[in-house]
């Protein structure tokens, strides 16, 4: 069913992760992703995994959802893992024809797989606990310095907000139009590629027409409420750093310190 597709899969809740300032969460996520790829020995990697798992636990989103978010990337993880297996240098542990597996290859494969999984988990924590509106607010704020370079940051953020807002609406509409055409005997489940593409026309045309109609309606509605872009615009919900946020930043900095010490103290795995 088309309505099973989730995008910007926000899970409403009241966990610590939900209450964190979205700006902090956004920065923390980027910061983590950078650190994940700097973790080059087992101890540091273990620490990173631990941090990611505590983030997952703190979000109080059911583990099933995280597994679901990992589902589409299993193939990618397996693929990069296997590819890395054969790209290690040093003494081969096993070899066949031109293929050889080295100890370094195995280590690399495990490390890259763990990193990819952690990467997805961490970004899922962000998208699961932050509503799309909060997220765009945070992006707008974080990218604001770019406005000095005449990048229309506010307009981009607004476009993102609107796009995210209309994803469920358009999905629902697609569902409705598909039902209506099916009721008129449209056959969307069988036939070759060409036939299937042609079968989409009765769905796509009404969908485009309605998307444009909605766009015009929305533009009129925005204009009639005097929307004129970002300049001088105040916000209803002003993002404010609270105790939890400073605490989170503190943890991140401590983590960084431990991270650096461990990187220096423990030799690299490869």
């Amino acid at each position: 069913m088309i309505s099973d597709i989730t995008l910007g899969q926000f899970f409403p809740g009241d966990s610590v992760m939900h209450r964190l300032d979205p700006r902090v969460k956004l920065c923390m996520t980027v910061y983590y992703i950078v650190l994940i790829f700097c973790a080059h020995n087992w101890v540091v990697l273990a620490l990173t995994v631990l941090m990611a798992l505590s983030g997952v636990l703190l979000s109080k989103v059911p583990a099933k959802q995280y597994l679901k978010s990992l589902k589409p990337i299993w193939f990618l993880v397996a693929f990069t893992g296997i590819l890395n297996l054969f790209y290690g240098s040093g003494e081969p542990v096993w070899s066949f024809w031109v293929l050889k597996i080295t100890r370094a290859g195995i280590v690399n494969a495990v490390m890259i797989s763990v990193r990819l999984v952690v990467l997805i988990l961490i970004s899922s924590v962000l998208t699961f606990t932050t509503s799309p509106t909060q997220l765009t607010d945070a992006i707008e704020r974080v990218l604001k310095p770019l406005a000095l370079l005449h990048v229309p940051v506010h307009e981009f953020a607004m476009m993102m907000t609107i796009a995210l807002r209309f994803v469920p609406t358009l999905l629902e509409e697609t569902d409705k139009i598909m039902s209506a055409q099916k009721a008129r005997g449209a056959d969307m489940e069988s036939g070759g590629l060409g036939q299937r593409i042609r079968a989409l026309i009765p769905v796509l045309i009404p969908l485009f027409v309605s998307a444009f109609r909605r766009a015009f309606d929305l533009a009129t509605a925005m204009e009639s409420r005097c929307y004129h872009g970002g300049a001088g615009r105040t916000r209803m919900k002003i993002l404010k750093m609270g105790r939890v946020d400073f605490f989170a930043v503190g943890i991140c900095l401590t983590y960084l310190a431990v991270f650096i010490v461990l990187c220096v103290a423990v030799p690299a795995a490869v």
Partner: protein
Amino acid sequence: MSVLETKDLTYTYGIGTPFEITAVDRVSVSVEAGEFLGVIGHTGSGKSTLIQMLNGLIRPTSGQVLLNGEDIWAKPKEIRRVRFKVGMVFQYPEYQLFEETVLKDIMFGPKNMGLTDAQAEEKAREAARFTELREDLLAKSPFELSGGEKRRAAIAGVIAMDPDVLILDEPAAGLDPKGRDMILAQISNYHRERNNTVILVSHSMEDIGRTADRVLVMNGGHAEFLGETRAVFSEGRELSEVGLRLPQITAILRRLSEMGMPVGETVLSVDEAFFQLLPLLKRNGGRGERA
């Protein structure tokens, strides 16, 4: 003879999620061939889910839909054949129009049935006649039509498939009173001329009262009442318990009857009331004009 029959029909949305909800709960009703059945119920009563199961657009969680005595899901591969026999007009059907011309759009259904262009065009023109679309409109793009005309073109697109059962979900929603009267009259005419089965879903008691032979009242996913329109409408109190209000004209005439006036207890339309009140006014020396 019943053309459509449901047996313990149940549909549950979002099984296994926190949002699990049973929209239709063990509904067993039968629709007689050639009748005009009204389905009424307020928002969320399960009427839209119910009718989508009748033509196989959604598959019931449990229970059966029998079309002419055969389970429609006996051969899932042939479900399209069921959709040709049970035509469905959705709410705001004008959003399904997509072809270059109105005529081509109306021909979409018949052509999916495997008819030749000539046969499909004949069916389309016949359907356009029922919904009173003028000849010059048929060559236009559907996007150039007015709101009411688009609605009628979309309805014609389903009628053109010549279904045994025609289901319409709120066909008059969002139209002005004139457009509303027009669509309902066209549906009634179609029913009378073709003598096939029509199921009209609405939350307007007025619309149902004017058109339907029998009424099915849905409430909270259950089939609450099913009976002759007049009999169902006479249960004023029970209806208000499920969140439905009698049409104004029915309520007024009921009050008059309670006050001892010699009028019928359950009057379904303004026209009917007019003919009941006229002799009374004449007798009392009134001028007998329609107010």
